[in-house]
């Protein structure tokens, strides 16, 4: 059974349809990269997986739990799915350590010391132990994003969702974040990543999904996608962004 499965997912904002019949799945340990031009709906799609964005049609199942079932305990589900945002979204009024422990204590019910230990271990893993008592505003973008990844990992998630994690970073800082993500992929984490970073995709992705105007236009194994994508739209897109 796949870890994440989407079946005919459609979403409308009023009369405007942003997602049309999106169907795909992610197996345990798989790394999927979702790419496409702006407005293709890729950010919206990934946000439907943990129900941050509601959808009107279709089904999404995460680890056997139906996301759109009204009876599903969403906070509980979300605590098991990690998410990293484009604008980091650390809580600015809390220190780094507090950012890492808040959800562990309030959602998972861990004791303070246990949460702190776990948080600091992950902080070390992303190389930022020295900053543990600082505030997010005192860190660079790349550092904040690495803390954000640590924060998501501190919940011991079964899978991780990334929404354009490096799009808001200055070029020098993109690599430090991608390195962390590559490590994570190599350790076998199930990941769904919305990104433009094709170098990352080539390195660790198993499959690549290409979206355009709310539809999944391509869903291919990595080598097939980069070798010769089937749709014209995807070819166009790749040609444009692979210049760098």
């Amino acid at each position, binding site marked *: 059974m796949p870890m994440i499965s989407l079946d005919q997912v459609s979403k409308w904002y009023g009369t405007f349809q942003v997602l049309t019949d999106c169907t795909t799945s992610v197996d345990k340990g798989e790394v999927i990269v979702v790419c496409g031009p702006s407005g293709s709906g890729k950010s919206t799609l990934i946000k439907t997986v943990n129900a941050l964005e509601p959808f009107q049609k279709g089904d999404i199942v995460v680890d056997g739990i139906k996301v759109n079932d009204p009876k599903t305990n969403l*906070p509980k589900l979300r605590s098991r799915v990690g998410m990293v945002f*484009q*604008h980091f979204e650390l*809580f600015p*009024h809390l220190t780094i350590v507090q950012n890492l422990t*808040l959800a562990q204590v*309030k959602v998972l019910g861990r004791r303070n010391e246990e949460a702190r230990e776990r948080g600091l271990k992950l902080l070390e893993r992303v190389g930022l132990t020295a900053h543990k008592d600082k505030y997010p505003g005192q860190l660079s973008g790349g550092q904040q994003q690495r803390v954000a990844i640590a924060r998501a990992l501190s919940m011991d998630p079964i899978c991780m969702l990334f929404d354009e994690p490096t799009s808001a970073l200055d070029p020098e800082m993109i690599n430090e974040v991608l390195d962390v993500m590559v490590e994570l992929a190599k350790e076998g984490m199930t990941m769904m990543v919305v990104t433009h970073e094709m170098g990352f995709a080539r390195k660790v992705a198993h499959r690549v999904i290409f979206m355009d105007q709310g539809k999944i236009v391509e869903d291919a194994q990595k080598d097939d996608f980069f070798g010769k994508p089937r749709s014209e739209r995807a070819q166009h897109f790749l040609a444009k962004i692979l210049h760098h």
Partner: protein
Amino acid sequence: MTLDFDVVSRSLPYLWKGFVYTVELTAIAAVGGLFFGTLLALGRLSPMKWLSTLAAGYVNLMRSIPLVLVLFWFFFLMPQVLQVMTGADRPPQIGAERTAIITFIMFEAAYFCEIMRAGIQSIPRGQVHSAYALGLTYGQSMRLVILPQAFRNMIPVLLTQTIILFQDTSLVYVISATDFTGAASKIAQRDGRLVEMYLFVAIVYFVLCYTLSIGVKRLQKKIAVIR
């Protein structure tokens, strides 16, 4: 015309009592107003249509009519409402001072609501998303992530509103409650010393409010949070 400011020093104890009431009323109304105002703000921002309409209606009503009229509403009609609610034979006399406290809490709640609503709406949506993504419930997200930030951002505005409230409390005069202004007025009329008393009151208010507003400006500079 001779001015006799001695009347001020002679009546200081009585004026002090009035001043204490003014400060108490301000403090209670500010805290109570902020509490209910925050609840109202959450109500206005709620996706449940009936709740947001009700909250908006209350806030708009309170902001459309003069404070004097609101004071009259509560002062003249609360005894009758309480009589009906408690089933007593005669309307219970609560007294102007207590009526004023309830009135001001309910009135200020509408103004604090708008301030907190602006504060909550100024927090980027991503903060809500990241709180939910970690598995926090609505209540936890509000209490631990959104409201602390909203409150911190709005502190200067909240304090300024409190200074305005401090001045507005003088209107309890119209229901004959004795605050600082009321006390001065009573002395003025008893001793025929209107000029001295009212000038004194004006100077005291000016010095206090001006000093407090400078304090707020300084505070504003200090707490500009690096986001």
